[in-house]
């Protein structure tokens, strides 16, 4: 009881003091940013010149910075692509099992209830975390104008993270699971991941410390915040020995939504904030607006998790708080949307020239749609229909795939040639990757969204049966497998593109 009181007082004091310090910094003018800082991503005479998928003469000016952490970043990218392919094969198997429940059903290792958490954990911690960290850290030298520091620590963090994800997956297969959604990995594995996560923060902060840049570009805000948030979240969520029952459910969904909102989302937004203006060659529409987007996200997103438990046995005040915060998320989302879409809108013709830009714009659009969807279905009237249904799965994929995954595809396709000093040999395959992934996720999200909604209506029908809520979803679940197959095909192309550039293609076409 005493320890509990200490934690209560401590967290309250830290948050109040932190806010107070923030207000003081605001008054002293340390928070606001000069609009000219939006141009800090351009070197001399670079503004106005697009930087397209293949390297340009302009890329050469960044070469030393781009390649300063070559080994660990390549390791992160290759790891991410391999996990992506494994994760999406599992995802497709899981999807097929809805329409063919006996498919691969005789082995205890291949049962639905094991493959599903494997899929989720592999794509979240294997694919997205690796890819987002890789791209974000690759951008750090460009934004600080200092080579990335402590590259060996970064590489070790990658090794440790790979070991952690592998052991966590074996644990799920062989019955060592914490049993909580999004937190399945067995607790000793969580220690590995927490250490690895903290190790990634070392090169980041060391590089920032060495930087002489007066201003940090918006991408860096998101990267810094994400790397502070993730270790705190992960440690608190995994090591709360006093939790059980409903309070554990609350902490569980507090984490599960924050791992999206405070981990992959800020990293994804950061990458858009860099690549969108960089590829176009023009600064972001309103730099001041990006401040609103960032601080709005920090405040609102950390408190939305309880909309996963509406109608459940949780205190009403906490449910209402999350509803208010979920709706409040519309503020940062709309400001970010204005910023991204207006910047892109003036240069839509460039979508023809840059597949990377297509990935980024697709991601930015998905962020707007899935976030507004999120605010909407946090409202009780909406939530009562969509809760417990495939709608949620559709929404999650629109956010984690349509938004963050597509952005990271773009980021890796942009970074890889600059990292290795080689150009893509088969840009057509990158184009094919974009279209199969984009069409795949659209089929996925639309089909499952409709199926989930109909399922939700059946679950509201007091005159109906539960059977009706199952049968109505079947055609939409089958359509989801079609979308999923396209996505898997696109991931094989992605892995091929990366491996080919890395191992089978000799250095050629140097711009030196």
């Amino acid at each position: 009881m005493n320890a509990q009181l200490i934690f209560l007082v401590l967290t309250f004091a830290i948050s109040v003091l932190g806010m107070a310090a923030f207000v003081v910094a605001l008054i002293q003018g340390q928070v606001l940013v000069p609009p000219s800082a939006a141009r800090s991503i351009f070197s001399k005479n670079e503004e106005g010149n697009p930087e397209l998928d293949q390297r340009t003469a302009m890329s050469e000016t960044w070469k030393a910075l781009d390649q300063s952490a070559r080994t660990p970043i390549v390791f992160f990218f290759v790891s991410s692509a391999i996990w992506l392919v494994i994760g999406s094969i599992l995802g497709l198997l899981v999807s097929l099992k809805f329409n063919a429940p006996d498919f691969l059903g005789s082995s205890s290792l291949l049962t639905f209830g094991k493959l599903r958490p494997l899929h989720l954990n592999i794509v979240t911690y294997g694919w997205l975390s690796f890819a987002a960290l890789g791209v974000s850290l690759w951008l750090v030298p460009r934004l600080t104008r200092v080579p990335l520091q402590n590259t060996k620590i970064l590489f070790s963090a990658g090794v440790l993270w790979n070991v952690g994800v592998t052991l966590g997956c074996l644990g799920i297969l062989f019955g060592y699971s914490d049993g909580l959604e999004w937190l399945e990995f067995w607790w000793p594995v969580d220690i590995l991941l927490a250490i690895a996560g903290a190790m990634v923060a070392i090169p980041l902060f060391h590089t920032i410390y060495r930087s002489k840049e007066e201003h940090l570009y918006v991408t860096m805000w998101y990267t810094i915040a994400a790397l502070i948030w993730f270790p705190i979240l992960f440690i608190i969520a995994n090591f709360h020995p006093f939790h059980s029952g409903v309070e554990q459910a609350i902490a569980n969904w507090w984490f599960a939504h924050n791992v999206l909102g405070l981990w992959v989302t800020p990293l994804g937004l950061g990458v858009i904030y860099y690549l969108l203006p960089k590829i176009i060659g023009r600064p972001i529409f309103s730099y001041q607006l990006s401040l609103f987007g960032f601080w709005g996200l920090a405040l609102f997103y950390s408190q939305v998790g309880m909309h996963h438990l509406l109608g459940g046995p949780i205190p009403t005040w906490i449910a209402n708080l999350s509803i208010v915060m979920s709706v409040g998320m519309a503020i940062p989302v709309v400001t970010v949307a204005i910023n991204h879409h207006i910047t892109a809108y003036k240069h839509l013709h460039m979508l023809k020239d840059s597949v990377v830009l297509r990935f980024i714009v697709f991601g930015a659009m998905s962020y707007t749609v899935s976030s507004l969807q999120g605010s909407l279905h946090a409202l009780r009237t909406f939530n009562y229909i969509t809760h417990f249904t495939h709608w949620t799965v559709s929404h999650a994929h629109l956010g984690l795939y349509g938004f963050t995954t597509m952005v990271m595809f773009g980021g890796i396709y942009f970074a890889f040639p600059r990292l290795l000093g080689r150009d893509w040999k088969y840009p057509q395959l990158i184009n094919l990757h974009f279209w199969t992934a984009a069409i795949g996720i659209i089929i996925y999200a639309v089909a499952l969204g409709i199926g989930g909604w109909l399922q939700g209506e059946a679950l509201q029908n007091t005159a109906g049966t539960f059977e009706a809520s199952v049968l109505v979803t079947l055609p939409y679940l089958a359509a989801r497998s079609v979308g999923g197959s396209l996505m898997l095909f696109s991931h094989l192309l992605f892995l091929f593109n990366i491996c080919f550039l890395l191992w089978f293609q000799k250095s050629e076409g140097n711009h030196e």
Partner: protein
Amino acid sequence: MNKAYIFVLGGTSTITLSIFLFVLVPRVEVEKINKEGLSAQAPYTELELKGREVYIENGCVYCHSQQVRDPSAGADKAFGWGRASLPSDYIYDKPHLLGTMRTGPDLSNIGSRQPSRDWHHLHFYNPRLLVQWSIMPGFPFLYDVVSSPTQPSPTAVKLPSAEDKWLLPKPEAEALVAYILSLKRDREPFLPSEVKK
């Protein structure tokens, strides 16, 4: 010095505030309820806890919720899933298994809704033996199938379709069914002293 500290400071305070609100305060509140000791669940027996492990290991939570909403929020009650859940229904649940998906029905009161042990064994072996439209996976790996003209052991369950075929539940299957049968959250909450078990 550049301004990284603003983001370190702001980021730390927002996350700390959310820890305060979503991790610590609910703990105090729920603990108060738990102290009253009211629960519709009796403490789990050793066998039921083992069955709970099987439930977790096989990921039942990804399709089955164990939380019932008020009639104003859905047809939960009309489907026979019992009264709306209370925080005190979960005081013995660690880890919690509330679940947020209903590909299959809610299981809060499955022990009262379907009290037949044999039904559950057949259903776990192959759900479509009993419920034709079911899309639940079977768990044949929790059973041995033997041929015998008479019941080979007291725990054996006869397969309806095939003649002389019997299901022999493995220990995991027995534990799982014991856990499932213990789920009776449609009862009114009672004090632990009233538990006769």
